[in-house]
């Protein structure tokens, strides 16, 4: 990744100080050795919709959490309306004038709309809450977000997610909000609901409010925002007026590569000799999750999945594996025709995960710590998990057999550990990833799905894991690999599926696979 020195030159150097609402100067924050934010500076003006963009781990959510007082800052200076502020918690941040609406609706579903809107702010008469006044206030707040006709005495969860999101915004406006932070509010909304939200944002902007808008949808960025700030790896790449920043420039800022720096064609592998079809997805999709798409994976090939964060990479992996059930389309897992020529293809659409494992699929999820490893269990126990699951829990695997399998894997993948009974949680990230890989390799899968296999591991382990993947491929395994590292994808993938806004927008193959082509497809 080459840092580009010319980027900062694009940033707005001329800023109108009189209209500055929020000023962040060289804000830093680290978590146990990881620098989440490194000297980030940002200015949001009154009456401005400011997009905050960046890939996973760029520091967007950390920045918002520091702003709203969820995390204390290490260094730096935050000024709101010219006064230095230190928010203690989100309640205090609201009092200071910073209101936040999160992707997940943070209201109480079992309480009425009025109760939600007035919580902690109810007006009292004679020491008791005056529900008549509360109701009037709730209606006034709802009117501000265009929900005049909504019955506020009904329970919140009787309304759709989109309405709940608008109610959350109404609540955010109830305190004297000067700055509104919208953290991916559109993720669960459909087109007309987004339109409603955008007209509200425009209205608030015209009233002089500053809005920070976090989203993954580039179209929305160009529809509504005035200014864009891009974060990458905890650093501020720059702040740009939306009108003068081209899409391809924006994408290259986000992924940290400029298109000009890239060779048009990389040294990626030429298509191997695709053998038998392993998996066919026909028009597979799920509402509000992933638009229907087709995909075929053959034995002996690596199919890469590229796209920005939130573009549907992980969703595609989950649907292919079956950990999320599609609501339309067909997934067919083809049997190994060389072994049993007469076998029928298995339709997997409505089958259980255990059947997926038994029919030769393996899946390493994106978040190792959350979904993959069991940190307290030993290396051996972690590796045996999938094999045990495919055999059925009642058929125990002899300890001597377990030890032999695990020992082979530790050697084959060069896992650095003194012994196989060490808890996995004590290993380094790269070695943890290898343990998960080993878990699936023990089951001799025909198709392995890897979501971000190289995230958060050091460079050496990086190369080792890519090498292992290529070896597996040569041995005839099919792999589906989602990755945010384009350079890496281009290196090992025979074909690359490009995802954008939960759609499959392209499938590049052969000499078309290059970083430039992928970036162009995403930006177009």
């Amino acid at each position, binding site marked *: 990744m080459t840092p580009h020195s010319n980027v900062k030159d694009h940033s707005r150097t001329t800023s109108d100080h009189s209209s500055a609402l929020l000023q962040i100067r060289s804000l830093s924050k680290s978590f146990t050795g990881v620098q989440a934010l490194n000297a980030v500076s940002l200015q949001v003006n009154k009456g401005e919709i400011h997009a905050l963009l960046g890939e996973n781990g760029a520091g967007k959510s950390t920045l918002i959490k520091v702003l709203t007082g969820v995390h204390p800052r290490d260094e730096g200076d935050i000024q709101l309306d010219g006064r230095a502020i230190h928010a203690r918690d989100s*309640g205090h941040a609201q009092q200071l004038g910073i209101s936040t609406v999160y992707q997940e609706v*943070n209201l109480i*579903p*079992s309480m009425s709309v009025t109760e*939600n809107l007035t919580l*902690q702010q109810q007006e009292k008469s004679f020491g008791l809450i005056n*529900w008549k006044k509360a109701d009037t206030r709730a209606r006034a707040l709802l009117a501000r977000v265009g929900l005049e006709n909504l019955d506020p005495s*009904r329970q919140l*969860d009787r309304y*759709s997610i989109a309405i709940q999101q608008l109610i959350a915004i109404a609540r955010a406006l109830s305190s004297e909000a000067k700055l509104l932070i919208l953290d991916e509010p559109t993720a669960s909304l459909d087109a007309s609901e987004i339109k409603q939200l955008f007209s509200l944002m425009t209205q608030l902007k015209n009233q002089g409010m500053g809005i920070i808008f976090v989203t993954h949808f580039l179209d929305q960025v160009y529809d509504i925002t005035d200014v864009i700030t891009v974060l990458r790896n905890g650093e501020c790449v720059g702040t740009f007026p939306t009108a003068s920043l081209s899409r391809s420039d924006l994408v290259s800022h986000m992924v940290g590569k400029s298109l000009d720096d890239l060779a048009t064609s990389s040294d990626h592998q030429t298509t191997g000799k695709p053998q038998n079809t392993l998996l066919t997805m026909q028009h597979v999709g799920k509402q509000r999750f992933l638009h229907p798409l087709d995909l075929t994976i053959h034995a002996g090939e690596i199919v890469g999945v590229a796209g920005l964060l939130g573009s549907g990479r992980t969703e595609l992996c989950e649907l292919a594996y079956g950990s999320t059930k599609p609501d339309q389309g067909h997934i067919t897992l083809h049997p190994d025709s060389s072994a049993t020529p007469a076998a029928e293809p298995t339709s997997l659409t409505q089958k259980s995960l255990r059947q997926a494992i038994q029919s030769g699929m393996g899946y390493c999820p994106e978040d190792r710590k959350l979904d993959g490893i069991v940190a307290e269990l030993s290396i051996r126990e972690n590796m045996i998990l999938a094999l045990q699951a495919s055999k059925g829990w009642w058929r125990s695997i002899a300890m001597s057999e377990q030890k032999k399998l695990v020992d082979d894997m530790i050697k084959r993948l060069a896992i650095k550990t003194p012994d196989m009974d060490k808890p996995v949680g004590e290993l380094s990230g790269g070695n943890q990833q290898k343990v998960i890989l080993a878990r699936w390799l023990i089951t001799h899968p025909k198709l392995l799905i890897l979501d971000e296999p190289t995230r958060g591991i050091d460079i050496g382990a990086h190369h080792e894991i890519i090498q292992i993947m290529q070896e597996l491929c040569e041995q005839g395994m099919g792999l589906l690999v989602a990755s945010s590292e384009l350079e890496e994808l281009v290196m090992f993938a025979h074909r690359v599926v490009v995802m954008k806004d939960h759609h499959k927008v392209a499938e590049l193959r052969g000499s078309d696979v290059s970083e430039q082509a992928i970036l162009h497809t995403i930006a177009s």
Partner: protein
Amino acid sequence: MINERNLPIFATLTVFLLLYGFGMYEYKGFRDTLVFTNLLTDNAFLIVTAVGMTFVILSGGIDLSVGSMIAFIGVLMAYLITSLHIHPILAIAISLIVGIAFGAIMGMIISVFEIQPFIVTLAGMFLFRGLAYLINLDAVPINHPFITALSDIYVSVPGRGGLTFIAMAMLVLLVVGILIARRTRFGMNVYAIGGDKQSAALLGVPIKKTTVKIYALSGLYSALAGVIFAIYTSSAYPLAAVGVELDAIAAVVIGGTLLTGGVGYVFGSFLGAMIQGVIQTLITFDGSLNSWWTKLAIGGLLLFFILLQKAIVFWAKKRSPAT
């Protein structure tokens, strides 16, 4: 339109009216107001305990210490009055402060160390029972002209019935409980914490402070129940009110409060406790049935109400949300 979340409390009211109607239809004596006012008096301590318990369960917690608290407060009061010769009013005040303090300490342990309320209040349950024995091993009468005067207060109502002091005290405490739940910020925060703790925190609800207050309130209400129980029996006994915590939980659940928190009404708990009382009275009127039939009936009702709540939550989810 009846909100489906209010359905359990209507079901509770219906069950209460059906049981009471059955009694009036079957037994002549049941028709007198005396039966109703006696229900209020006999179940006063249980109702007061259940009111405090409602807040705990609304917040998603549980308080197992309330039965032991009743016994401990009774014994403490008796000790203060008969051995130390302190005036009952002062003795009651001291007892209530002790009840609040013990409740608040449990709330602090629960919120600061993030320990399951079940375990913390279980420890409290053993501790208070033990403390009661530490003060006194036997049952002691509480003989004080002031206590006798309180017991003698009787406001007649039409028919042969009448309200005793403890019945009226219970009604006042019930109304106060309803007001705290629905008309104070604290009450709304309890509902919010029980509904969704994380969201409540993001909405600015002080979780820890509120949790301490919830258990302090439950401590106060169970201490009040202890005082009422001592006046009701004119005595104190360390083994009193064994298992009352479970009766109170049953009353709250039968009253329509979700055990997972967030949904329910204080008035429902009153009805829940009254239903238990009516069943007991019916069995007494019948004369031939063993009193353990009460437990059988309450067990059956409890099961019915828990299944009803599950069914309602299921229906609510199935019905597509209105837009």
